[in-house]
């Protein structure tokens, strides 16, 4: 495991932008995904805003792959559940007692488009922003250091868990546990994995806490930072502009707008 985050280092102007500017861009996409009334408008946010941003950041391929990988389980379950179980009049297909309805499919399309924009926006932020720089920007704006630390370590917890799980699985395979095969066999293999995985993580908490104490984590007083974030007046202006758009979207939603 070389890098435990999604971040991809590129020499793009988007990468060099202040983390708060990137956060504002992504925030705009997320708010648009929540407030715009029509799924086509929401898909336009994906196609005409997020994709060009990913292209500008030189991470388009990773962006598309990650967003498609993330969205299909949601899309599948939403179209099945909403299509068959949402109330509606226009029946498209009848399979025994189940009826596939147009209204349900449209509802599923609406939810899927919103989830696609939300998940992709977060993925894009992670692809183009170093998490430690993002947290530094936020703690410099008043986020408590402890909260910043928790968020940063949470970002790295999944790869750490994966490594630990692989070690435990390897040792259990060595003792004859079947971990390959069909879905049921794989699920069965998860049961003996869960307890050691959770227990060992809890047991190491003391060591982690001591290691942090030894490095002045609870030291009172002002902290400094090795990393320097570059901000410009044009970026500050951009952030204010994005904030106004975000507020306008929220206001439009509250006002119950209707777009063509």
């Amino acid at each position, binding site marked *: 495991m*070389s890098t*435990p*985050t999604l971040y991809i280092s590129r020499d793009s102007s988007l990468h060099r932008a202040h983390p708060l500017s990137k956060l504002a861009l992504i925030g705009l996409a997320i708010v648009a995904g929540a407030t715009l009334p029509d799924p086509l408008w929401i898909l336009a946010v994906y196609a005409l805003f997020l994709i060009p941003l990913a292209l500008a950041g030189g991470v388009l391929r990773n962006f598309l792959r990650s967003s498609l990988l993330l969205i299909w389980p949601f899309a599948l379950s939403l179209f099945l559940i909403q299509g068959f179980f949402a109330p509606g009049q226009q029946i498209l297909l009848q399979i025994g007692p189940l009826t596939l309805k147009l209204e349900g499919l449209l509802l599923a399309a609406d939810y899927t488009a919103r989830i696609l924009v939300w998940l992709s926006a977060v993925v894009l932020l992670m692809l183009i922003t170093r998490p430690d720089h993002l947290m530094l920007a936020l703690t410099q704006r008043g986020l408590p250091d402890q909260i910043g630390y928790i968020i940063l370590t949470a970002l790295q917890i999944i790869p*750490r868990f994966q490594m630990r799980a692989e070690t435990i699985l390897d040792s259990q395979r060595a003792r004859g546990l079947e971990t390959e095969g069909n879905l049921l066999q794989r699920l069965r293999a998860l049961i003996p994995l869960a307890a050691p995985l959770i227990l060992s993580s809890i047991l*190491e908490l003391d060591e982690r806490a001591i290691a942090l*104490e030894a*490095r*002045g984590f609870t*030291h009172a007083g002002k902290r400094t930072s*090795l990393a320097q974030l570059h901000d410009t007046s044009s970026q500050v202006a951009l952030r204010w502009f994005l904030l106004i758009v975000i507020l306008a979207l929220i206001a439009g939603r509250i006002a119950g707008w209707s777009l063509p």
Partner: protein
Amino acid sequence: MIKLENFTFTYPEEKDSALSDLSFEVPTGQFWGLIGPNGAGKSTLCYALSGMIPHYFRGTLSGEISVAGIDVPRSSLGEMTGQVGLVFQNPFNQISGSRFTIRGEVALGLENLGVPRSEIEERVHETLEHAGLAELGERSPFALSGGQQQRLAIASILVMRPRVLILDEPTSQLDPVGTHEVFTLLDELVGQENTTILIAEHKLERLADFADNILVLNHGRIAANGAPSSVLTDPLIEAIGVQPTRYTQAARAAKERNLIEMDKELPVTLSDARGYFRETAV
């Protein structure tokens, strides 16, 4: 630099003391090894010397303990941070997880203490050079080998320029190459920075090579304390369950089988053993 007088510590809900009536003194700039069987109290002593006892792990204590001139029970962990460093077994658990480069990881302690950025830069650069990690500064801390990760853990403490460094079995999860890297770094520290080091360690061959003095704990009490050549050849350490160095074992076995003539002091290091067998072989 480290001074204990009749120091006793008992964990809560425990009947027996984890450390009993310990008295010893480590002079400035010395490299001490701490050995003993499992459960002897080595880790507890490391925690007491670094202030984690009584400030993190509670319990009852009596006697005196001072490290780097700080009266441990009567001061705070904050006062000890930067003066006394602690490194322990698993290098992976010592990586904060909140920094994404090795430079950032080493800088964390100084950032927490509010050291100015220009000074952090200078000290991080110097420490990475010292730890042999300068080339890897922009890599992820997770992309290192075990030995490199432990050197990173040590560097992260060293950057705070502690006067005393306590290490609790720092090489137990490392291969011979990683172990050698760590001991070489520690040896340089003593030589160049006059840092006082106390290291709990099972690899006696390494201690025999590097340590000025060996302290043996058993059931929380001092079982022996002295120069490696005398302590590591004392039959007592084997009696309490600590395997002597392979050189001592080989010499003792040769002696028992009458393969050697002289009644010479048993060797503890490879170079001792070379001389020993050359002089004594029948």
